[in-house]
């Protein structure tokens, strides 16, 4: 009995810790001070995740909205669930990824084990998530061509020696893959590589685009490493991405997610954000991200620089 009580207590306190962790990122602050009135100005709250890529894109949003006369407040948190509870509500606009948002809304609505609704087909994914967005009171603007997806790299040497440029070139091979531990069983990672591409994968859980993962591939311990389509550091390291020619990656296109209520009141936010989405592609964004992650420029500086170049900002 004592043992069981102890276990329960341990489990409970673990749960409390997790809850406390989320509460630390609480976004609920002043959500009553929004200006009513149509378009042009007022307060807008942006939320996004805190990793460099998201921070950079969020800075672009912020600069554009500032230009449009809004008083912008930005909240960067560790993970999507931390802002999703208050969006819409105290959060108005989120720089999102199509499939990531869709699958999160899906598991929130239908449980941890719900079948993913995303696929590599952008239009099909958008259509599948439409009812979930409506229930939640959100809408998506135009998705960008830029898509932040998992991608797999080999060394240039390996690519040339073995004539490998696409993932399907590895069919039937036994391959060691250095990747994030969440790779196991995922359709866009181990499961997809095994079932769709017929590659015999042995997973080394060394992290997503982590120094350990790069090192493992460069040392020849692993043949394949996991990173993202927006990784601008590969070239300098002598690494090349393999093409996902059978489409196992869900459509993680960048897309502005906006509260329906906010958009009705402020329809003028739509145009600049759509123009931004049109201006971005993987190569451009990849280079900009390197300036943040490698050159340590601030996301705000890089964002402004880029927007001025594109003529989106005066």
């Amino acid at each position: 009995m004592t043992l069981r009580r102890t276990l329960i207590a341990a489990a409970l306190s673990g749960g409390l810790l997790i809850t406390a962790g989320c509460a630390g990122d609480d976004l609920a602050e002043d959500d009553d001070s929004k200006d009513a009135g149509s378009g042009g100005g007022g307060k807008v709250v942006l939320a996004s995740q805190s990793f460099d890529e998201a921070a950079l894109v969020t800075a672009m949003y912020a600069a554009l909205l500032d230009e449009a006369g809004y008083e912008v407040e930005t909240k960067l948190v560790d993970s999507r669930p931390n802002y999703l509870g208050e969006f819409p509500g105290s959060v108005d606009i989120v720089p999102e990824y199509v499939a990531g948002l869709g699958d999160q809304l899906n598991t929130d609505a239908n449980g941890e084990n719900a079948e993913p609704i995303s696929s590599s087909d952008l239009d099909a994914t958008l259509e599948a998530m439409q009812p979930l967005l409506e229930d939640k009171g959100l809408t998506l603007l135009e998705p960008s061509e830029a898509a932040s997806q998992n991608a797999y790299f080999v060394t240039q040497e390996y690519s040339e020696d073995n004539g490998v440029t696409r993932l399907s070139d590895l069919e039937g091979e036994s391959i060691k893959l250095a990747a994030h531990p969440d790779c196991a069983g995922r359709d866009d990672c181990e499961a997809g590589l095994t079932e769709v591409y017929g590659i015999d994968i042995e997973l080394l859980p060394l992290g997503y685009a982590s120094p350990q993962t790069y090192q493992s591939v460069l040392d020849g311990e692993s043949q394949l490493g996991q990173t993202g389509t927006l990784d601008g550091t590969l070239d300098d390291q002598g690494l090349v991405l393999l093409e996902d020619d059978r489409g196992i990656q869900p459509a993680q296109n960048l897309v502005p997610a906006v509260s329906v209520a906010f958009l009705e009141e402020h329809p003028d936010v739509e145009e600049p954000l759509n123009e931004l989405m049109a201006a971005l592609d993987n190569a451009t964004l990849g280079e900009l991200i390197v300036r943040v992650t490698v050159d340590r420029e601030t996301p705000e500086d890089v964002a402004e620089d880029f927007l001025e170049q594109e003529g989106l900002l005066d």
Partner: protein
Amino acid sequence: MSLFELTWQYLTTAASWTGSGGLLDRLAEQLLLTVTALLMGLLVGLPVALWLGHIGRGGFLAINISNIGRAVPTFALLAVLVTADWPGPAQLGPYGRAGLATLIALALFALPPLVTTTYTAIREVPDDVLEAADGMGMSGVQRFWRVELPLALPLMMSGVRLALVQVWATATIAALVAGPGVGAIIVSGFARNHYSEGIGAALVVAAVALVLEVAAAGAQKLVEPTRERRVPAKVRAVVGDSL
């Protein structure tokens, strides 16, 4: 289902325990890591601590050096060892990827409790007992083997016990360099949002830590000196019942 129920379900499903990469596999790997690292720690730490305790000098230095080991995060040390040319991330038999690096990091982690308690245990042998031993004409070696070591053993054992439980729980970090052990299940559970697996495996680690603690306590009882057997009667005759 609540997280608690999911965790319970995970822990009560046979498939979670058996099979390649199941809890039993991982427990065996982690036990092997733990015991080996502890033995390495004992091999390095005990002779030094015993000798320093016996001559009664240099303890301050030894304890502080080994305490630096407490201050350095074990994972940071492991990361450095894996990145270095040696030992690096090479496979080491049943110890898996970066096996040697993991063993070294864990052995260093075991040193502080081993060295501190062993040194203290020898130093805490009462002065009157040592005087009695000297008075009987025991040589240094005799005094060490027949008086100091037997009297120090219980406290030394508690150091070993402490190190065992600490190393066991910490051995989960092997997973962070793609090594073996229950940590692999914890890391992959949390990484894949299967919190039930992560929490379940963590509970198993905690439960086994308790089991190890109890077992080590039992072993400690066994080496508790029964006065008649461990301390020479002549010494007892001199110092009386103060032991």
